[in-house]
């Protein structure tokens, strides 16, 4: 599908975006938060259960903490999707064998 060069190039861009997310991102509220503030229902918002409280790992500070959170996020997404795809393909193979 990808040449090795293209794969590494895309991966590099993803890792850079992920690591420097806090540096690159605007800290302004997004569309929904802005609407909730303007219309006065932002206070309904409750913290939910999650492993980390934001895109910030409890390691290092500033750029390191947010950068590692970004890398963890893209790593988890990549691993989860490739694993799931492999499971789906194995099921397909098993199904074909049965027929």
């Amino acid at each position, binding site marked *: 599908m*990808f040449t090795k060069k293209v794969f590494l190039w895309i991966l590099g861009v993803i890792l850079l975006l992920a690591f420097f997310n806090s540096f690159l991102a605007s800290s*302004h509220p*997004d569309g929904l938060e802005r609407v909730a503030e303007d219309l006065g*229902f932002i206070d309904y918002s*409750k913290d939910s259960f999650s492993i980390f409280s934001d895109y910030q790992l409890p390691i290092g500070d500033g750029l390191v903490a947010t950068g590692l959170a970004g890398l963890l996020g*893209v790593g988890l*997404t990549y691993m989860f999707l490739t694993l799931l795809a492999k499971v789906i393909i194995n099921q397909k193979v098993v199904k074909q064998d049965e027929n």
Partner: protein
Amino acid sequence: MHIPDGFLDLKTCIGTYLGTAGALKFSLDKLKNNFAEEKIPLLGLLGAFIFAAQMINLPIAAGTSGHLLGGVLAMLVVGPWAATIVITAILVIQAIFFMDGGITVLGANIFNMAVVQVFAGYGLYIVLQRITKSAKMSVFLAAFLATVISAGVAALELAISGTIALDLVLPAMIGWHLLVGLIEGVITVLIVSYLERVIPNRLELLNYRVGDCGVH
């Protein structure tokens, strides 16, 4: 556009969870019949890219930001069924690990961004391609409009929950997401054009009509 816990009432949370569960089951079944092994790295990279892009809020107007949702991008690259799974995976990881979007409202967030945005984009893209004759224009408009529709559905959920009146929240959500949609449209066109250049004829939906409509 990740809804936090507390914005939606119980019936809306349960209703959207049920709708989402049905859509996911259907998508996985569809995928089992037509997912090619060679697409695995593409699926992983696509998910990783959209996860990274979703963290990067871009300023859209004074004091407000927006980021790529990515459902239409994913739909064009791997097809609507796989796209639903990709965006769902991202939303689940964001909620469980990073408190981006709540847990009780996760069904609603998946519904809005992984089901509505993806399938609104899919329907629009197919229709637009017949009308506009330009793949880039079709991609831009599908991404733009699907984002606005997704925001409209979120507004409906807020109104049904009794959080805020529909006549207030619907125009406000749609207004801001016209701007967010512009970002969605531009980024989707750029990424799809790049992918069509480096892996020609491998994108699921740009092959929908072979020939004069390829993005170059």
